């Protein structure tokens, strides 16, 4: 495919289109995904191209959407559903936890559920209440689910194609504030596979570990640190479950210092899990305790206060500065 300048939203749309062209079992449904093309336009034009049977609006009911997807997957389809916003997905939580996550296990591998639950997630877009949760920890904590969060246009395309082909249910978290970020990309349905982290920026002094919407902030912080003479490495998880211990730990060992950056509240979260895992494996390579820069342990704030919640470059640099440097 030729190099094009695409937004993440366009890349996701293209991924759905290509997946539906490649496999007629792929169905896309949810709220407002038909004629409107989704509130973020991720499903734009799919009903026009594939018809009402392949991309369709449902009644407004999240448990219904996910529960019906379970049955469709049981009977040979490959459903991709959209939860309109992260925080609208909770009515479907029982279906996700009790059935989506457990069906393969309950039935000793006889019934598998290849399905994708897409949801626009996290903040930074000035959304009002109930539009900007970071709910990845709930899903990551549930055995049986695969959880991914792309941070680049190219990964968004590839990971969604891989998620749709994946033999198990995938929670696909789309960072809202990156929907309009554009990149010149060549779309590929090949690598990366789900379960692989990537070093986005090489560095020797400390490692920033981030995923989804926090990756560009971590990259910005690394850029700023470089101007001050400190070389920061940035690891992008891409896949929260499965977790790529190998890449993350190799990165941390190479620098001996680490900061985890995430938008979600820090308590009992994916960020706490990362700190625990890395500490257990890399303790003797660490020159300082691992620090975290996360959201406060509060409900997602109203738009005029959200900048206080989101990890920013200064907080990251302050955390890096606190990593017990010999020269400080």
């Amino acid at each position, binding site marked *: 495919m030729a190099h094009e300048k695409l937004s993440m939203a366009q890349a996701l749309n293209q991924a759905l289109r290509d997946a539906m062209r490649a496999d007629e079992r792929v*169905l896309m449904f949810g709220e407002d995904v038909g004629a409107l093309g989704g509130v973020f336009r991720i499903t734009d034009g799919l009903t026009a191209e594939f018809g009402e*049977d392949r991309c369709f609006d*449902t*009644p407004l*009911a999240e*448990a*219904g959407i*996910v*529960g*019906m*997807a*379970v*049955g*469709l*997957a*049981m*009977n*040979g*389809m490959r*459903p991709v559903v959209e939860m309109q916003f992260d925080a609208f997905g909770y*009515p479907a939580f*029982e*279906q996700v936890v*009790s*059935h989506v996550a*457990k*069906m*393969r*296990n*309950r*039935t*000793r*591998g*006889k*019934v*598998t559920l290849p399905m994708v639950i897409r949801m626009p997630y996290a903040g930074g877009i000035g959304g009002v209440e109930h539009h900007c949760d970071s709910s990845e920890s709930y899903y990551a904590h549930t*055995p*049986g689910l*695969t959880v991914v969060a792309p941070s680049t246009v190219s990964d968004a395309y590839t990971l969604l194609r891989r998620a749709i082909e994946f*033999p*198990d249910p995938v929670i696909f978290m789309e960072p809202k504030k990156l929907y309009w970020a554009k990149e010149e990309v060549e779309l590929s349905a090949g690598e990366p596979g789900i*379960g692989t982290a990537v070093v986005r920026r090489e560095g020797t002094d400390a490692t920033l570990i981030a995923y989804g919407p926090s990756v560009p902030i971590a990259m910005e912080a690394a850029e700023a640190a470089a101007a001050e003479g400190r070389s920061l490495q940035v690891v992008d998880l891409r896949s929260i*479950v*499965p*977790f790529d*211990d*190998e890449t993350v730990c190799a990165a941390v060992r190479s620098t001996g210092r680490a900061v985890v950056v995430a938008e979600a509240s820090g308590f009992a979260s994916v960020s706490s899990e990362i700190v625990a895992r890395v500490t257990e494996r890399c303790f003797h390579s660490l020159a300082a305790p691992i620090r975290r820069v996360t959201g406060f342990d509060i409900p997602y704030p109203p738009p005029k206060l959200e900048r206080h919640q989101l990890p920013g470059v200064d907080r990251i640099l302050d955390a890096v500065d606190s990593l017990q440097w010999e020269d400080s």
Partner: protein
Amino acid sequence: MTTVEEQLLPSAEPVQLVDEHGGRHDSPQYGMPAPEALVDGYSQLVQGRRINDQASALVRQGRLAVYPSSHGQEACQIAATMVLGEQDWLFPTYRDTVSIISRGVDPIETLTLLRGDWHSGYDPYEHNVAPQATPLATQLLHAVGVAHAARLKGEDTVVMALCGDGATSEGDFHEALNFAAVFKAPVVFFIQNNEYAISVPLARQTIAPSLAHKGIGYGVPGERVDGNDLAALLAVLGSAVGKARAGEGPQLIEAHTYRVQAHTNADDATRYRNDAEVTPWLERDPLKRLDAYLSGEGLLNDEQRAEAAAKADKIAEDLRVGLMQEVSPDPAELFAHLYATPTPQLKEQAEFLQDELSREEA
């Protein structure tokens, strides 16, 4: 031209073709099932009763962890399965063991869940029987999905989705009926109203005139049937399956029956109801009633009774013998069925457990 009420509302009284004394009542709408079906149904009822009673006994002997008996509800269980074709699907709840066995699933595999070996002991695709659902009403949405997929694939599959009266209070019940109606999915929602959700009576679940009336709000035709009358159940459920198969969309059937035993062996039913309430229901027993009717019609003789009893004896013996065998589920299975490819984290944990087990043995 029929009114909305005529199209969607259930009959004023539950449909009954055979009364509690075995007397025949003809219905203008529903014909009496063929004698062969009723005799076959009688034999299955005898087996169903024996499965219930044997399983309850096995709980007392510690061979099953728990058994939610459907004693007294066997007509619903048997009819739900008898009206289905091979390509159709059954979505059972935890109380529908008899229905699953009636569908052809191996009895021991059916009881794996309640024995505690694994969550579901059978392959759902072997007989098109979904795993038994413990959360209430969640499986009704899966039933809609299976039916919708069948429609998209051009198959004439019908899905029989079972639930109890308690489940009708859940949000997923509402969403399932609504989705099925909007997508015209071939699903028969079959409520076995046995008057109690553990200890809570129907009056605390709803003040609707009947549970079948709930269909009108979704545009789904509702019907009520005597749940202890196998003939009426076969007629009403059979008609609903026929309509769903013919493309008329989902159907809602409420059977009026009664849970004559406790919710499970862990429940003390005397805390919330008394004998005066239970006793009249024993008189409406589906088995005695069908026996009386068939005998009166000259359709059932002692030889057939003995044959049915022998089949029931055999199944009870198989259950006793099968469940006496000590089983030790393989701990490695704990990690085997989460993902097509286990995550590195699960591989590590499986190795850890294996190591722990080998040290136990040493």
